[in-house]
């Protein structure tokens, strides 16, 4: 009994990863701690992200039609495998809740001052649940439309902000100490690029496993260059003030002023973040319910959508006491927290699989 009957193409995977990565930077700005050198941190972070991607795409190429849950069972055996799978599912669930809480905080702080967070989260969750219920193919097709909208909005914002940019704000290059720069670039590597590790739940439903790394790398580089544009633009428009703002992209777009007619365009940023968070949370949510279903050998993941969705909303509402705590975890705590999940589990699994001679040769040839 197959849990997922849909298949997606490599191009759809590329778009899905792009949407997934932009889900992070439509909300917050990774690498912001490096000040005007944030763009350097992003370039370095992207390189490290590609190394992480190489590890987990290699793992998925060894087991082309299996998700990480099935791989774990195969490699570590029934009990140890399931324990590791639970850890991985927890990571998906946790990241999803973090994204939701950043999202709800952003909307709460900037636009819906009096709307309860629960309402914002429930509205988002209902759409995500409905998407996940329809399977991976619908999610992939949806993300194509949304990513095109998002790219258009980002390009439009950037074009309208060109007159406000000052190249001097990016100088001098490499102003911060190297160890701090590396630390920030590592944080960029884990969030958003390393998070693509959650696609280990999705790779099993993608055609042409041989092109996996090139697809993932292309998606990361494309999304990374958009991130680079946004970050450099924010620094150039805002200068040092980009450091103080909680949501610099939102603040930067405030500056758009086309002859006193086209002003107050900042709601565009909110639209962009809503649609990109939809893609990101849907992928994470899909991974979580699919993982739980495979963990318990269920026939369908659909009955899990409602309970896990509710748990996710509750967790998103309660995991952070305030915005300072939230950013402290996302920018500092997550840097170390993510390492075992993004690098540890795939790398060790890969090594153990090789030592145990898995998968057996006859299976690969078939």
């Amino acid at each position: 009994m197959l849990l997922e009957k849909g298949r997606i193409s490599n191009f759809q995977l590329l778009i899905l990863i792009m949407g997934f990565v932009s889900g992070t930077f439509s909300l917050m700005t990774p690498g912001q701690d490096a000040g005007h050198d944030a763009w350097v941190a992003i370039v370095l972070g992207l390189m490290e992200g590609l190394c992480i991607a190489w590890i987990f795409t290699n793992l998925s190429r060894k087991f082309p039609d299996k998700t990480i849950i099935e791989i774990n069972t195969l490699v570590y055996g029934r009990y140890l495998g399931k324990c590791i799978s639970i850890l991985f599912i927890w990571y998906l669930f946790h990241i999803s809740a973090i994204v939701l809480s950043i999202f709800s905080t952003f909307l709460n702080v900037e636009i819906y001052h009096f709307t309860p967070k629960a309402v914002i989260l429930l509205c988002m969750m209902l759409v995500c649940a409905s998407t996940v219920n329809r399977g991976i193919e619908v999610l992939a097709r949806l993300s194509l439309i949304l990513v095109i909208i998002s790219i258009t909005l980002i390009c439009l914002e950037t074009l309208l902000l060109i007159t406000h940019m000052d190249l001097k704000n990016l100088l001098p290059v490499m102003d911060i100490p190297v160890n701090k720069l590396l630390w920030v670039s590592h944080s960029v590597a884990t969030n958003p690029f390393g998070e693509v590790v959650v696609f280990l739940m999705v790779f099993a439903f993608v055609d042409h496993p041989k092109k996996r790394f090139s697809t993932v790398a292309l998606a990361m580089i494309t999304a990374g260059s958009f991130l680079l544009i946004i970050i450099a633009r924010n620094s150039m428009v805002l200068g040092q003030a980009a450091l103080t703002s909680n949501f610099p992209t939102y603040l930067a777009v405030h500056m758009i002023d086309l002859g006193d007619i086209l002003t107050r365009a900042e709601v565009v940023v909110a639209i962009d973040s809503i649609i990109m968070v939809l893609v990101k949370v849907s992928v994470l949510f899909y991974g979580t319910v699919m993982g739980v279903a495979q963990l318990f050998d269920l026939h369908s993941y659909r009955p899990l959508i409602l309970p896990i969705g509710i748990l996710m909303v509750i967790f998103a509402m309660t995991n952070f006491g305030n915005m300072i705590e939230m950013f402290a975890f996302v920018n500092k705590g997550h840097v170390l927290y993510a390492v075992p999940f993004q690098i540890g589990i795939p790398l060790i699994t890969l090594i153990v699989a090789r030592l145990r001679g898995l998968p057996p040769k006859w299976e690969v040839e078939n």
Partner: protein
Amino acid sequence: MRNGKRRKTYGLIFLAVMLMFLPGCWDSHELNKLSIIAGLGFDIDPETGENKITYQSIIPNQVKNPSGGGEGAHAIKVVQNTGSTPYDTLSRAMQHSSHNLFYPHAQIYIFGKESALQGIYPFIDGIARNVQSRPNVLVAIADKEAADILGAQDEDENIQAIGLTNYIKLSARFSNYQAVTFLEFCNRLMSKSTAPIAPVLGVFEEIGPDGKKMKKARITGMGVFKDDKIIGELNEMESRGLLWVIDRIKSGYIIVPDASLQILTAKSKIIPELEDGKIQIRVEIEVQSKLAQYMGKQDLTPSILKELEKRQSEKIKKEIMAAVQKSFFLHADIFGFGEAVHRSYKKEWQELEPGWEDYYSEIKVVVKVKTHINEVGDISKAVIKH
């Protein structure tokens, strides 16, 4: 099958009904329940130390018919309140208002002289933290009280704060004073070396269109800050000198003996040079101008234009040196020379940065001006008998 169809219909009806209740429940802003703020003034009472906030709010149904004129029909009202902190004051103002205060349309923040002397950081923090405030609002200093400036009138615009903002932006085009936005002010405040600046406004009496005396706000200088406290003021000439250096000259006139010249384009570059551990700043300026008026009563020749160009560059040099002298006197790096050194000499800057304030007034500034008169207008001969 039929069951499914019925469920779908019920679902749609349910959604349609919900749609009536959901929109804008919590965050609705109704125009008739808002007090739209056009300008905010911040003062500190020197005797009691209390905060005083003055705001000018727009009365929407009066804006459309300015012909009403006379007494009674004002498009704005000016409200004053006092309190212990900025937000205490604002909350007191809100308690006495029948409408909710709405900030996103504020055009200008004005800080009174006393608050600028005591430090405006409490206000700056309050503004920056408020999610409704925008980074491109103008910042200005009042020569006495901010309340006086917001109480002045504007004969062309029935919302005075908008008139005032347009006036500051227009006068920035004549390149005597600079319009400073909140974002620029904050960036200078956050910079480790550059001193914040903001235009200073004063109130003058003028004869209005109806023959009565009216109060109008005018720029009188550029205030120079150290951190968040005002320490001095640049006059018109020094302010022009500042604008030459920071590349903010857009248009305007240069008055030299015998001629008035209109600035067409102006470019400037700050080039720091490091020789034997000593900083020298080279300011290179390139100006192209147009002869607007010539009082020499003779036909123009190339040598006359050369002479005018020379006078023009001397004038510019004089203005810049006046600004430099004033900034040395105030020990305030208004030009951003420190940032320029930082950009070019990253390593040396680490040593210079802590003592920059004292070191600043000892640096050597060399000004090089390249001027060219491109156009002479419609006539090249004098319109008078020789």
